[in-house]
């Protein structure tokens, strides 16, 4: 038996899918059989739709097993780990042969996710083995000046990955140009955007890459202190970050005179967010770090001039920092050879919703939405009809199916009315109601509005009320126009990005799906059969066989009837969840 390495994907999503059981089983079997191989907990490979994942690397190559349960674990252990015979039918990825899931990886280029699922995130030595901390060491050894570092970042064309899309190198330059005895580096890890989880994956799978990016930024602008503002909903990310920080301090990669360079003092601390979406906005984030209510501040002055504690501050998001070390190490060309004229490099997208293969993909900028969804993502669940994709979360918008050849780069996406955002891509099929989607996002931004600007505070509330009544069949003539008017006013008169973009989901759905709004308002019908006040489930008497499956599965016991007799749905009790509709094998439930 050659040297074998076994990796278990243990990011939060893997753990939720049952990876801990897999890890423990292997660990138990290893002890029981007294076998010698390396067992590693690693991050997420991005193949979330096949979690839990188990990878076995032997002398012939690597074999990634998907949807591993206890039974499969035992089989893989017996056959592969013990006897060196891969269990091919469970393999979802291997460089040795094609699998049904191979298309998921074709076209992906991994820069940010290069180490996720490959290294042990809790071991700094593993990161260093994979070119870790080489970029910063190269800078120190070659005595590269901060100006040169900044120029390389400018040349690479890297733009902020948090949504703003501002040229990162220019941001650094502004902070560099402002002289001060104290400067700060902040990493925005307050990934509040529902439907996006790339930052969580990076923090859980490769925390040192983020630290290295921040250290390089600190060198470039002359910062003394760093803060990672991470949302409290990511407990595992916080744990792994703190482990990484301790290890980096032990090696003197953080602290005083780091990397042996006199006068290079820099340390990083983790600040836990307390649950406010608006804190993803940079000035609100800084207010929160200072211990205040997370309310945005007026710009200018920009953070590069007067940021945290009124000192020059550079703030980027997790994915941006994770790109930095690779750019420094491999040169600006290694990054800007990918992408389009104005959007360089690769971008991580979180594919979720009604898609067959949901997970994280990293692709060059400029790839079309169609390619991401159908080539990588495998198409729509249950082969239903693709309807739209939501990009950019609550600040973004919906892009309809007929525009799916839109290229994903900052400018093309902006032209549709959506925004790139942090890269959340929620796929919707024919059963998704676009008015309800708009209502959902407005409900979110309305709750998350900090209350500082009147138009955002009250305007979103009024818009939500209108959307609520439309989805409940109480819509009035003129509601669409009223929504549009309010939307423009909110966009114009809000201080921060939250308010300025909150109406986007409404505006894009009105733009592309006006007929759905009209159907709700004029005909009191929901074309997607989604809005609960506008639909009913009834039993078709001629088709019902009395199999009792619907009654058994109804979560609220709204269905009554004896075996082999026609069943009845009590409309007062029914919560319109649609379980009976999906469970009935005889198409005896009618949705109208």
């Amino acid at each position, binding site marked *: 038996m050659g040297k074998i390495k076994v990796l278990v994907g243990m990011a*939060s999503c893997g753990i*939720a899918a049952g990876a801990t059981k897999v890890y423990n089983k292997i660990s138990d079997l290893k002890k029981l059989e007294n076998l010698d191989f390396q067992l590693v907990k690693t991050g997420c490979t991005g193949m979330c739709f096949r979690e839990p994942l188990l990878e076995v690397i032997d002398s012939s190559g690597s074999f990634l097993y998907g949807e591993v349960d206890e039974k499969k674990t035992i089989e893989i252990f017996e056959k592969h780990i013990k006897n060196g015979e891969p269990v091919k039918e469970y393999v979802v990825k291997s460089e040795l042969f094609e699998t049904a899931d191979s298309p998921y990886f074709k076209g992906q280029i991994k820069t940010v996710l290069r180490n996720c699922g490959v290294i042990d995130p809790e071991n700094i030595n593993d990161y260093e083995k994979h070119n870790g901390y080489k970029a910063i060491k190269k800078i120190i050894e070659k005595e590269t000046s901060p100006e040169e570092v900044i120029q390389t970042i400018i040349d690479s064309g890297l733009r902020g990955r948090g949504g703003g899309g501002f040229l990162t190198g220019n941001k650094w330059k502004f902070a560099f140009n402002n002289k001060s005895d104290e400067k700060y580096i902040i990493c925005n890890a307050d990934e*509040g955007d529902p439907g996006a989880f790339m930052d969580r994956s990076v923090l859980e799978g490769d925390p040192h890459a983020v630290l290295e990016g921040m250290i390089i930024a600190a060198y470039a602008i002359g910062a003394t202190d760093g803060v990672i503002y991470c949302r409290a909903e990511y407990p595992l990310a916080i744990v792994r970050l703190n482990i990484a920080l301790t290890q980096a301090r032990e090696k003197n990669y953080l602290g005083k005179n780091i990397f042996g360079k006199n006068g290079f003092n820099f340390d990083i601390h983790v600040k836990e967010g*307390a649950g*406010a979406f608006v804190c993803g906005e940079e000035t609100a984030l800084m207010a929160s770090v200072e*211990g205040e209510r997370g309310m945005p501040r007026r710009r200018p002055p920009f953070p590069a001039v007067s940021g945290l504690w009124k000192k020059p501050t550079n703030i980027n998001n997790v994915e941006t920092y994770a790109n930095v070390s690779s750019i420094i190490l491999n040169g600006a060309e290694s990054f800007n050879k990918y992408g389009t004229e104005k959007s360089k490099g690769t971008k991580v997208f979180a594919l979720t919703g009604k898609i067959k293969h949901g997970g994280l993909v990293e692709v060059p900028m400029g790839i079309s939405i169609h390619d991401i969804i159908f080539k990588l993502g495998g198409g729509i669940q249950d082969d239903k009809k693709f309807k739209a994709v939501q990009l950019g979360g609550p600040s973004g918008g919906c892009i309809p199916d007929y525009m799916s050849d839109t290229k994903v780069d900052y400018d093309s996406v902006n032209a549709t009315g959506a925004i790139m955002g942090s890269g959340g891509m929620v796929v919707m099929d024919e059963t*998704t109601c676009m008015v309800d989607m708009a209502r959902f996002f407005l409900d979110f931004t309305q709750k998350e509005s900090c209350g500082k600007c009147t138009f955002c505070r009250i305007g979103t509330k009024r818009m939500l009320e209108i959307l609520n009544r439309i989805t409940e069949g109480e819509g009035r003539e003129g509601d669409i126009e009223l929504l549009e008017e309010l939307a423009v006013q909110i966009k114009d008169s809000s201080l921060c990005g939250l308010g300025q973009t909150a109406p986007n989901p409404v505006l894009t759905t009105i733009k592309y799906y006006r007929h759905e709004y009209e159907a709700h308002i004029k005909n009191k019908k929901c074309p997607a059969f989604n809005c609960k006040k506008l639909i009913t489930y009834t039993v078709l008497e001629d088709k019902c066989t009395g199999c009792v499956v619907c009654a058994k599965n109804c*979560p609220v016991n709204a269905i009554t009837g004896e075996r082999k007799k026609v069943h009845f749905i009590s409309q007062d009790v029914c919560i319109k969840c649609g379980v009976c509709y999906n469970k009935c094998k005889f198409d005896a439930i009618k949705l109208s």
Partner: protein
Amino acid sequence: MRIQRVEIKQDNKVEISKINFMKLDPIIEKFRNKRGNLIPILQETQNTLGYIPKEAFEYISEKTGLKLSDMYGVATFYAQFRLKPAGKHVIKVCHGTACHVQNANTITESIIESLKINDGETTPDNLFTLESVACLGCCSLAPVMMIDNESYGKLTGKLAVNIIKEIQLKEKN
């Protein structure tokens, strides 16, 4: 809007007098005179006590000189802080975009139906608190809920209720 008035019922006076606020002293010492200490103090207080009772605010204010109004302002701004005691198990149902598209409402409704409490409330036996949260970041397993620190994915209403019933059963024994 995050600003909300939170009523604090005083019917559990006995219990509050039992709370040993000295437990907060190490937290107060740890963050004494540190810039931006207000949020971490409140976070650790909540970790220690499970929630932040009115008396805790007063105790911290007295010891640190932080203004009560500032503390209350912060505590009511952020979703994380609880001013009321929570149940032994906190059920967080994810209502992020991906979960919403995959019918997260059904999960919440089924739990409401089963536990006979509304969103944000605690069962009379103090066993469960039901909460809707924005995004737990497990979008590919949608719909998702988290009970204590354990996540459950690919749920249906029935499945969610069964998981809760199992916990109920364990608690009874």
